[in-house]
């Protein structure tokens, strides 16, 4: 099965190599470590399976374990739990957008077990003139 980022409901940004995700409906926000961020970008760029992501990790990151798919699968399960990704509709990869130039570059990055950290929910944002 392939998965893709739930970009209709999730806003995200990468700052200093780490991703921050905001679920628009629950207002839950999450932090990703560097490997998590790189995998998230793959899920934004195109629907991917655990095996494909594991192979991508082995190819692009240094120090990856022999079988990264195990840790990738745990990461995917976390993203599903928080409704940050969806199962992709077959054929959806043709519709995947081009990779934005602002994506964090992977080559040479050190592998660490991909992690998503929930930080809670945000209250409604207050704008202030004062």
């Amino acid at each position, binding site marked *: 099965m392939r998965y893709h980022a739930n970009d209709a409901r999730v806003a995200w940004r990468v700052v200093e190599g780490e991703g921050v995700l905001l679920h628009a409906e629950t207002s839950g926000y999450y932090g990703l470590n560097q490997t998590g961020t790189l995998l998230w970008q793959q899920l934004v760029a195109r629907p991917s399976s655990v095996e494909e992501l594991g192979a991508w990790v082995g190819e692009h990151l240094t120090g990856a374990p022999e079988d990264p798919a195990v840790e990738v699968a745990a990461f995917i399960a976390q993203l599903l739990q928080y409704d940050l990704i969806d199962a992709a509709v077959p054929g959806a990869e043709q519709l995947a957008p081009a990779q934005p130039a602002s994506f964090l570059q992977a080559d040479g990055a050190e592998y660490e077990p991909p992690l998503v950290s929930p930080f809670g929910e*945000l209250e409604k944002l207050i*704008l202030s*003139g004062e």
Partner: protein
Amino acid sequence: MTRSEHDSRRRTRLIARELQLAISSPHRTLYFHGESMRPLLIEGDEVVVEPVEWDRIRLGDIITYRYLDRFPTRRVIRKSDSGLELWCDNWPDRLFTATRADVLGRAIARRREGVWLTARDGEWARARRTALRRYLQLVVFPPLYLRARGMAGSVLRRLGLRRRPAGR
């Protein structure tokens, strides 16, 4: 929690709040706090802010920008290459600045007691014109008027048509 973990959490929260602003819509409004932009925006108004390109910011727009961990929302009264000068419609005696990098978006609609007012509506445009006119009257014209009066007085004194002020 270590200090660096605390800082990291604080930064993550701030970025998430900026994302809240980026996905603002009529279904995901933001609250306005305070009386500084009265009467257009008052305490409790729901506001929609849209991302805006720098080149599309016009004088009179209401801009939200990043300031520490807050999101001031004020009217643009001057624009330069590096940043904006802003004021609050209800605080005409105070000027604020925002750098180009800190601009996050432009207010385009508000909802008060269930009724929407958008930047396309006449009331919004009138508030913009009124604010810019007040800025000219209160901030721009007085120095020009004083300078012109001083120059006229100087000319009149040189011509002997006016005495020097007493005590000088």
